[in-house]
């Protein structure tokens, strides 16, 4: 069996009486898209937050690239190669799309404690950033402030940022949300290729995309993984149908 | 020769009342002098009780307005900021109120004249009075140089037992804790130095608390500018000052009368001191040209003017030698005011004169 890139063991997190994460064990292996689905409020975002470091788990282990990262902060994990997108877009609103991506490039290149060289004249920053924008199809909008982008464009920008980080693994929280059919199709194709670069933990409610992309699917309900397996396993699991998919319309 | 006088004083912010009185008193002196003052030109500016603003105005008055004499500053910290550099630039400075000890002692200067008092004087007078009257005094002042100086000045003459020494915060507004301590101290008298709003707040709260230990203090907290705000709570307080409106001399009577006519209120001690400063300048201007610094200095030092304080002369360090009275707050009809009840010192100088190099 291949060594997992991301390995989560028996993770637990409660908010008061609510067990938002209740003993979750899952891993992410090279080259795969591992989809995480489940009803609203099942704890998917909470899990992503814990992996990315914005929330502290109560107990359990998170290993990334063979190293335990529980004690690391958000920034340190990101530098190690955990790229993420947010369920609700989170960008620097006054900065242009390009500068938003450049920030990621700069972080990836190392020190942000450089005080003198102007960034906009630094090809080692602008070029990779432009390339990332081009890959998500935002090249034309490079100089538009993030605040003025439409909803869908902001989602694309988030992906571009994660790309620019050259991540070793992607945590994508509902990247399709708000994208039109066309956008979804493009993004699906794009993620399909992306898995070769780094595996993806994909939280998504768009079942067409999930079924098209996922190598494995885990289903989270009330903080527990109730099923895990291939697309077909999951599609036919009666429990999953009841708790999540509903009867096909 | 024409003389140009720059008045830097506090006309805005919390301490404006004092500055307004000083300015009004000063201008009144020139007005009352009539023709004798016609060559004296005055510029007035507000320092907002900020030292750096005072310095800036002083610079401006010296450099742009080319004044010959500066005066008007109320507060010691502002005086410390302005006076040393002004006199170093060969200007005269005449203090209408502030009298910090360095300027009386080690940093005294031939061009610096204090027409008011040295800061310790009124406290010393109260120490002297308490020494004769009480056995066990508790003393209280804010925790800053003027406050510590005050208690030092008091203790210089008070040799009886101290029932306690309380330092309050600068700008403090609630004194319940201190009043409880005073009540518990078993003292037979209380000396306070709490200038401005602090004194008003304290006296009101003290009266309301029902503690009946008699209060004494320097005249600042019981001067005409604050008495209306304290109200009856101030009645009976003994306080020290070099002047009171019932001082029996012609100059003072004229001053009080004209001040009331001109401004519609009773003058405070700040007004009186500033009035004397104005009169002093007029007297010196009559004798010498301000352009002849030595002659003018001599004319100032002679102090030949009609002081509202009666007798007035300068010590070797250019600080006053004067009588200091003990006054009591009384009610004259509806108006609260002070009445002289004793003289604490006659011809009193200050403790720092010997540290001063001037002869």
């Amino acid at each position, binding site marked *: 069996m291949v060594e997992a890139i991301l390995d989560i063991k028996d993770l637990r997190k409660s908010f008061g009486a609510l067990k938002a994460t209740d003993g979750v064990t899952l891993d992410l292996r090279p080259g795969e898209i591992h989809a995480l689905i489940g009803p609203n409020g099942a704890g998917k975002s909470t899990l992503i937050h814990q992996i*990315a470091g914005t929330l502290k788990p109560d107990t359990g282990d998170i290993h990334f690239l063979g190293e335990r990262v529980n004690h690391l*902060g958000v*920034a340190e994990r*990101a*530098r190690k190669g955990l790229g993420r997108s*947010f369920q609700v877009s*989170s*960008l*620097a*609103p*006054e*900065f*242009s799309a390009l*500068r*938003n991506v*450049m*920030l*990621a490039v*700069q*972080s*990836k290149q190392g*020190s*942000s*404690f*450089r*005080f*003198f*060289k*102007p*960034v*906009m004249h*630094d090809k080692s*920053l602008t070029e990779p950033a432009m390339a990332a924008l081009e890959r998500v199809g935002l090249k034309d909008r490079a100089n538009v*402030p993030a605040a003025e982008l439409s909803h869908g464009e902001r989602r694309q920008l988030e992906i571009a*940022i994660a790309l620019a*980080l050259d991540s070793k693994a992607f945590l994508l929280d509902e990247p399709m949300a708000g994208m039109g059919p066309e956008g979804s199709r493009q993004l699906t194709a794009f993620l399909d290729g992306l898995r070769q670069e780094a595996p993806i933990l994909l939280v998504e409610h768009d079942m067409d995309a999930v079924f098209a992309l996922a190598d494995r699917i885990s289903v989270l309900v009330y903080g527990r993984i109730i099923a895990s397996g291939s697309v077909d396993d999951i599609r036919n699991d009666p429990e999953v149908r009841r708790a999540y998919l509903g009867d096909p319309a | 020769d024409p003389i140009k006088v720059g008045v830097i004083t506090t*006309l*805005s912010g919390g301490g404006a009342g004092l500055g307004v009185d000083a300015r009004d008193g000063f201008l009144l002196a020139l007005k009352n002098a009539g023709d004798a003052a016609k060559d004296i030109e005055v510029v007035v*500016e*507000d320092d907002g009780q900020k*030292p*750096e*603003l005072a310095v*800036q*105005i002083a610079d*401006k008055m010296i*450099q*742009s307005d080319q004044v010959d004499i500066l005066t008007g500053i109320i507060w010691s*910290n502002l005086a*410390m*900021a302005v006076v*040393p550099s002004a006199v*170093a630039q060969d200007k005269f400075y005449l203090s209408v109120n502030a009298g*910090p000890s360095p300027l009386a002692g080690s940093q005294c200067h031939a061009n610096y004249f204090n027409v008011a008092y040295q800061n310790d004087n009124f406290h010393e007078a109260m120490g002297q009075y308490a020494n004769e009257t009480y056995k066990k005094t508790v003393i209280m002042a804010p*925790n*800053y*140089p*003027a406050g*510590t100086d005050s208690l030092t000045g008091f203790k210089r003459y008070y040799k009886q037992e101290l029932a306690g020494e309380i330092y309050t915060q*600068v700008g403090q507004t609630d004194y319940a804790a201190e009043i409880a301590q005073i009540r518990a101290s078993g003292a037979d008298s209380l000396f306070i130095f709490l200038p401005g709003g602090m004194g008003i707040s304290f006296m009101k709260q003290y009266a309301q608390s029902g503690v009946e230990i008699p209060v004494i203090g320097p005249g600042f907290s019981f001067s005409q500018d604050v008495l209306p705000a304290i109200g009856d709570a101030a009645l009976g307080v003994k306080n020290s000052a070099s002047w009171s409106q019932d001082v029996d001399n012609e100059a003072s009577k004229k001053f009080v009368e004209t001040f009331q006519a001109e401004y519609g209120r009773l003058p405070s001690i700040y007004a009186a001191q500033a009035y004397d400063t104005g009169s002093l300048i007029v007297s010196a201007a009559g004798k010498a040209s301000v352009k002849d610094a030595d002659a003018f200095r001599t004319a100032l030092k002679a102090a030949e003017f009609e002081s509202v304080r009666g007798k007035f002369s300068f010590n070797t360090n250019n600080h006053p030698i004067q009588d200091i009275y003990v006054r009591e707050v009384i009610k004259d009809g509806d108006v609260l005011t002070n009445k002289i009840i004793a003289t604490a010192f006659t011809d009193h100088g200050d403790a720092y004169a010997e540290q001063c190099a001037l002869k």
Partner: protein
Amino acid sequence: MNLSRENWVSLLLLALLLALPYAAIKFGNPFYVTLATRMAILGLAAVGLNIALGLGGLVSFGHAAFFGIGGYVAGILASHAMSMQPLNFGLFTLPGSNQMPTIWLFAMLVGGLLAAAIGTISLRTSGVYFIMITLAFAQMTFYFAISWPAYGGEDGLSILMRNQFPGFNTMVPLNFFLICYGVLVAALILFALIKNSRFGAALQAARQNEVRVASVGIAPFRIRLVAFVLSGMIVALAGALYADLNRFVSPSMLSWHMSGEFIVLIILGGVGRLAGPVAGAMLFVMFEFLLGGLTERWQFFLGLVLLGVVLFARGGLVGLLAGRQRHG
């Protein structure tokens, strides 16, 4: 690099400030040299604060602490140089100094250390809490200075002779102005470089969206702390110059009014803009001086003017002149 409109405005303002004292001397009103010096120094302080506030969004209501500390370093070193008594720190002693470069170095060092200490604690908070905790620290230094008798307490500390700068007679107002002006220009260049640098990018992004910055792998705390320290150092340097301008330091340099004034300068001129602080300082000192000369009620009118600026001239003076800010 061709000059943007904003850069033109900046150059124009600097040229104006430089011309003021020469014009003053020519037209026989030497006091304006002092006024221009004051503008330069307050402008310098505001440039310092602008790093934290304009770029980093760290609304510090306590920068008077650094300003005052800089001033006291100057005052204390000078007074010890005067009295020839070394400062005694228990473990070691230090001679006083009346040389500006030495004094500046110490002012920046002490200011920086203080900023590091205050920043480390304060930066854990954000928003209004940050405003208030910085104020709290400044108030502590203020009350300390008032009641600490060794260096004058509330009465302050006089510097009898203005400190010296190699090759200049600093007592000549114009010379002292040029020194302050030089320091101001240096600080402005530093600010411009920082603003466009990687550090500046991270700092500005952290102001807009802290979570985003962290999740690309840049820890906002360290970026902000460095910005805060830099900012404190520049303000301390301004404080040292201010002490020399007035030849006097007092706790009022540490008061919350002073902190408020710095913020006012920046907003008046334009937040985060290169020349904003300079424009603000020029405007403010002018207002204060002219209104103060016109009427005793000048604070009333100053208040109205400030209100007008906040409500109707968003982006401050530089915003009016150079248009809205573009973030590349």
